[in-house]
């Protein structure tokens, strides 16, 4: 047996994941996030005052909870070290999303969706790189680049975010990767 073959197997072990399970979980979480962003868009554009703010806060917390549960549930059958690292990265990423959302909300609230989109996109791209997943890399980049469109159409930022999340959810369901 060649060393190269052995090294490839070690790398396979590090990147190991339960693809079928992840695909289903990713579809559910992206689909739910998309719905949440559509609701945020409606609240943001058609309602105002403290009730709207409360709704947005609850929805963002809900989104975070979905992400945490998703991460906890992943890799039940196959739990590699990259899964372990990614769980930690996602936890720090969520802290970053929450803190930067609070900061942006008080300084420039209209850029909230842009911030959430770019950080979430980065997290998705990192996961795509670690697990050699084209869909997650593509989805992450799509989220990052969609923030440029969000800046142009600021009033529709959450709608754009929701549409992109929906596209990623459908891509996960299509089972393009083996």
């Amino acid at each position, binding site marked *: 047996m060649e060393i190269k073959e052995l090294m490839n197997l070690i790398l396979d072990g590090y990147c190991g994941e339960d693809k079928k399970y992840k695909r289903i979980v990713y579809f559910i979480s992206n689909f739910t996030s998309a719905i949440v962003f559509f609701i945020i868009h409606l609240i943001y554009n058609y309602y105002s005052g403290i009730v709207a703010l409360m709704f947005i806060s609850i929805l963002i917390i809900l989104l975070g909870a979905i992400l945490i549960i998703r991460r906890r549930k992943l890799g039940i059958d*196959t739990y590699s070290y990259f899964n372990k690292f990614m769980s930690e990265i996602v936890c720090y990423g969520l802290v970053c999303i929450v803190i930067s959302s609070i900061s942006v909300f008080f300084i420039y609230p209209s850029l909230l969706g842009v911030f959430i989109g770019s950080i979430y996109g980065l997290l998705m791209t990192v996961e795509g790189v670690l697990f050699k997943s084209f869909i997650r890399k593509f989805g992450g980049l799509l989220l990052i680049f969609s923030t440029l469109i969000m800046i142009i159409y600021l009033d529709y930022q959450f709608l754009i975010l929701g549409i992109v999340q929906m596209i990623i959810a459908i891509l996960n369901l299509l089972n393009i990767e083996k």
Partner: protein
Amino acid sequence: MDNIFNSEVRVKILALLYGMEYCEYNYILKKLDTTHGNLWSHLKKLEKEDYIEINKYPLKKGVRTVIKITNKGSKKFREYLNELMELSKKKP
């Protein structure tokens, strides 16, 4: 070198498990493209030598077999890998 490393299948099993916290039996079976009987006999040998841990959990339908590399298994595999690297460097 340990006689555990005489078998290519056992080396491959350890290589795969080296980067993992744990994994399911079917994952190894799929990755190594071997037969059920062959894989199971090698896993049993590795378990006997305390290189891996095999745990079974009952499910509604069947049993879930989870395999994990032990500290001893990780250490021995690392040593084997280092030896292999040294040997490959010495080759002209």
